[in-house]
């Protein structure tokens, strides 16, 4: 039980993540791909939780599911004539794409498995929120400020681009 439960959860979410990612990249229906992304994001959040990053898991769901996924769905629905459900998404260069990505996968897996990662510091994890907050306010205060500039500019730019009039 003690060792089985996390394993089951891990494999369930791995299956869910990779399966839904496969739907995203192999599926032919665009909207289904977007909804499959929901499962991917969700299982990634579960991974975070398993890795003790509870705050990140919450943020992952909040931002990815609540924000980015909704954005994608809007993007899909607004950039297609959605009179029917036939939102086909075509593919091309399947063979070469598969070759390249399989090669990359092989290389990465080899590297990942052969490299001796220095797993020395497996500490007890508690709540991570205060630690993250403290880091953001002390050591990483400059990146934090840059991120705010980035958010401002992204907001401004996106709003500018979707506005119809050009002289505003």
């Amino acid at each position, binding site marked *: 039980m003690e060792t089985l439960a996390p394993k089951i959860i891990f494999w369930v979410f791995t299956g869910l*993540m990779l399966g839904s990612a496969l739907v995203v990249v192999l599926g032919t229906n665009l909207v289904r791909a977007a909804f499959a992304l929901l499962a991917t994001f969700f299982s990634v959040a579960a991974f975070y939780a398993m890795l003790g*990053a509870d705050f990140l898991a919450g943020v992952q769901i909040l931002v990815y599911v609540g924000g*980015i996924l909704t954005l994608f769905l809007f993007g899909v629905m607004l950039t297609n004539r959605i009179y029917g459900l036939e939102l086909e998404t075509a593919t*091309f260069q399947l063979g070469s794409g598969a070759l390249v990505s399989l090669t990359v996968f092989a290389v990465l897996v080899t590297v990942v498995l052969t490299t001796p990662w220095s797993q020395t510091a497996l500490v007890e994890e508690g709540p991570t929120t205060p630690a993250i907050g403290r880091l953001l306010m002390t050591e990483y205060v400059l990146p934090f400020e840059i991120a705010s500039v980035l*958010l401002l500019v992204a907001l401004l730019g996106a709003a500018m681009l979707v506005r119809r009039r050009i002289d505003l």
Partner: protein
Amino acid sequence: MIPLEYYLVVASALFSLGLFGLLTKKNAVNVLMSIELMFNAANINLIAFSRFVTGDTEGQVFALFVIVIAACESAVALAIVMSLYRILKGVDLPEASALKG
């Protein structure tokens, strides 16, 4: 206890899937989705390392910034896609080929 390598392999698989979608998908929005998969793969790596290797929250802070950046990037990207859709009436990448040559 799941070893670190398991997470890394899953992340690699997710990364490769994202790459595959990127190379094979025609629809711009779908390509952006694939890119999100790549970001997520990197984030899994970061958090796994932050737990198993460093043992502090540094990697998590990085992942947090990555999430922020991914959100900004998708917002801007979708805005561009919408803007292009108004002109082209379609968002398939091979259609956006006026700049060839």
